[in-house]
C-alpha cells in the first residue's frame, strides 16, 4: 500500500497586481508570484483566503482556484463572482495582500506528441489554457481548445488565444462562434480530425457529456473537477467524489487525489450538479 504523499503546499502572501472584470460575471485576479512558489503544472490550484474576512464580519473557508497562468512575475486566476467570497476577492485592490497555499493537487498528464483536445466551459478555461498555451511543461503542438459559454457576454475574448488555429468557441445562443454546446462542437471537430485524448474542465453536465463522447470514440478522457473544500491537503475528506476505485473507501478527494481524474473511474451519475 502506497504511503500518503504529502502535498508540497506552502503558505504564501503576495500582493494583488491586477484585478479586472473580464466579462459580465468573470474577473481576473493577478497576484505577484511569491519567492519559493513551486513551478505549477496545469490543473493545479491555489487555496485562497478570502481577504478582509474579519471586516466582512462573517466566516469564510478558503476558496480553491485553478491556475490560469503563471510566469516568473505573476500568477493569474480567473474567478466567477457567485457569492460573498468571490465578491470579496473582486473588491481586492492593487497592493492588497492575498494569502494562499499552493500549488496543490495533481495535473493533466503531459503527453508529448499526442493530439489533445481540451473542452472547457466557464472558469474551466483556466487549466486548459494553461496546459496548451502557457505551461512550460506541456506545450503541445497539436493542442486544440474548444470553449463554450452561454452567450457572448460571458466570453472574455482577450484571454483566449484566438490567433491559434486550434481554438474554437461556441455559445448556446449562437451570439459568437458555433451555435450550441461545446461538446457538440467537439464531436463535430473530432469527426473532422480525430484526437488521441480529451481533457475537460467546466460544469459537471459538460464534463459528463465529454465522458460519453470519449467513450463513443474510445479515447481517454481526463476531467478536472471542482468542489467545496476544507483543508485542500487531503486531510479533512470533505471534497470527495465517488469513483469505481476500491481501497478503504471508493471516495477520492478532489483536492489531493485530483482535481484531475481519469474520467473512466468517476461515477458520473452520482457527481453533484451545482
Amino acid at each position, binding site marked *: 500500500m502506497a504511503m500518503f504523499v504529502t502535498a508540497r503546499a506552502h503558505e504564501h502572501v503576495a500582493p494583488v497586481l491586477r484585478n479586472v472584470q473580464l466579462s459580465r460575471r468573470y474577473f481576473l485576479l493577478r497576484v505577484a508570484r511569491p519567492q519559493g512558489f513551486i513551478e505549477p503544472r496545469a490543473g493545479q490550484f491555489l487555496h485562497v*483566503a478570502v481577504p478582509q474576512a474579519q471586516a466582512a464580519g462573517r466566516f469564510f473557508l478558503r476558496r480553491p482556484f485553478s491556475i490560469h497562468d503563471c510566469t516568473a512575475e505573476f500568477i493569474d486566476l480567473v474567478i466567477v463572482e457567485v457569492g460573498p467570497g468571490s465578491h470579496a476577492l473582486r473588491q481586492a485592490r492593487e497592493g492588497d495582500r492575498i494569502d494562499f*497555499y499552493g500549488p496543490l493537487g495533481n495535473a493533466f498528464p503531459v503527453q508529448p506528441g499526442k493530439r489533445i483536445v481540451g473542452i472547457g466551459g466557464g472558469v474551466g478555461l483556466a487549466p486548459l489554457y494553461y496546459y496548451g498555451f502557457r505551461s512550460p511543461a506541456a506545450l503541445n503542438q497539436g493542442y486544440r481548445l474548444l470553449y463554450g459559454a452561454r452567450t457572448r457576454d460571458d466570453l472574455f475574448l482577450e484571454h483566449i488565444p484566438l490567433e491559434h488555429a486550434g481554438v474554437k468557441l461556441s455559445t448556446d445562443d449562437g451570439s459568437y462562434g458555433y451555435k450550441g454546446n461545446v461538446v457538440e462542437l467537439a464531436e463535430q471537430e473530432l469527426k473532422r480530425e480525430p484526437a488521441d485524448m480529451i481533457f475537460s474542465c467546466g460544469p459537471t453536465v459538460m464534463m459528463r457529456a465529454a465522458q460519453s463522447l470519449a467513450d463513443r470514440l474510445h479515447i481517454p478522457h481526463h476531467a478536472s473537477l471542482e468542489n467545496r473544500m476544507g483543508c485542500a491537503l487531503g*486531510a479533512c*475528506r470533505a471534497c470527495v467524489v465517488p469513483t469505481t476505485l476500491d481501497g478503504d473507501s471508493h471516495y477520492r478527494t478532489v483536492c489531493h487525489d485530483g482535481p484531475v481524474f481519469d474520467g473512466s473511474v468517476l461515477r458520473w451519475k452520482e457527481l453533484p450538479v451545482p
Partner: protein
Amino acid sequence: MSDISVQIGPVRFKNPVFIASGICGYAEEYSPLVNLSRLGGVVTKTITMRPRPGNLPPRIHELPYGMLNSIGLENVGLERYVAEKLPQLNKRPDVAVMVSVAAETEDEFIRLAEAFAPMDGYAGLELNLSCPNVKGEALDQGRNPALVERIARIVKDRLPEKSLWIKVTPNITSVADVARAAEQGGADAIAAINTVLGIDFDLETGKTVFARGSAGYSGPAILPIALQKVWECSRAVKIPIVGIGGIGNIDGVRKFFLAGATAVQVGTVLYNDPALPATIISALEEHPEWLTARATLS
C-alpha cells in the same frame, strides 16, 4: 520562555495547544503548513476497527458564522492506521499523538484498547463518544452516563500509562452527568465539545443540504456553547478539561481557560489560518498566567 507544559493524567504535554480530531487527518497531511512538533499535540482523525467509506457527498457547507460537516468518520481502519499512519507520523521527532477512536460496542472498545496496549508512539487515546454524523452508536454512547463510565474503565484498565480523554457531545441536557461518569470510569480528561447538531436546507430544491439531514456545526458560532459546556464540566469534575469549539484567536483560548479548561484544541479555524496554533503558543509562553486564570461570576 515560560514553561507552559500541562499534565493530563500520566502524560506531560509540552504545551496546552492541540489540533482537534478530524481537522488535520492523520496529521502528516498538515506538515507542510504546521510545525507539528511545536504543538502540545495532535489528535488524529477518528479511527474505527474497520475502514469506513464515509458519507455521501456533499460533506461540507459554509454558513456565515461557521460550517456544517457530514464526513461520517471516513477512515482507514485500525490496521492501516497502526501499520502506516502512526509510523509515518512517528518519523517526525517530538510530535505528541492523541489517537481518536470510536467503536460500536463495548467489546470493540476492548479489542481497540488491547490492540493499542503493546504499542508505542502515541501519548493516549481520545474516545469519540459523540460523533453526530454516523448512525446510532457513537452519539448515543455519549448520551448514556453509565455506558460512558463502563467504556472509560474498559480502556483505562488496559492502558494505565496512557492519557485517556473522553470527547463529549454538546447535544445533551446535562454534560456534567457524562463528565462525572467519565471521571468515575478513570478518564484523565474531558474533551469538550464535539460539533453541535445543525441542519440546513436548499431553498430551491426544498431538500436538506446533506444526504443524512443533520450534520455537525463548528466554527466561531459555537464558541459560547463550548465555553458553557466547559464551565459546566469544570464545576462537575476534578480531572482536566480540554476545551474545543470555535476558537478563532487567542481571546477564545483565554476564555476557555477562564471557563476552567487546562488545554485547548484548535479546529475549523485551521482551514483558514494554519499559523494560529503557533501564534497561540507564543502568546501563552509570554503570558503563562493566562493558563490558570479562572473566571468568577459578575
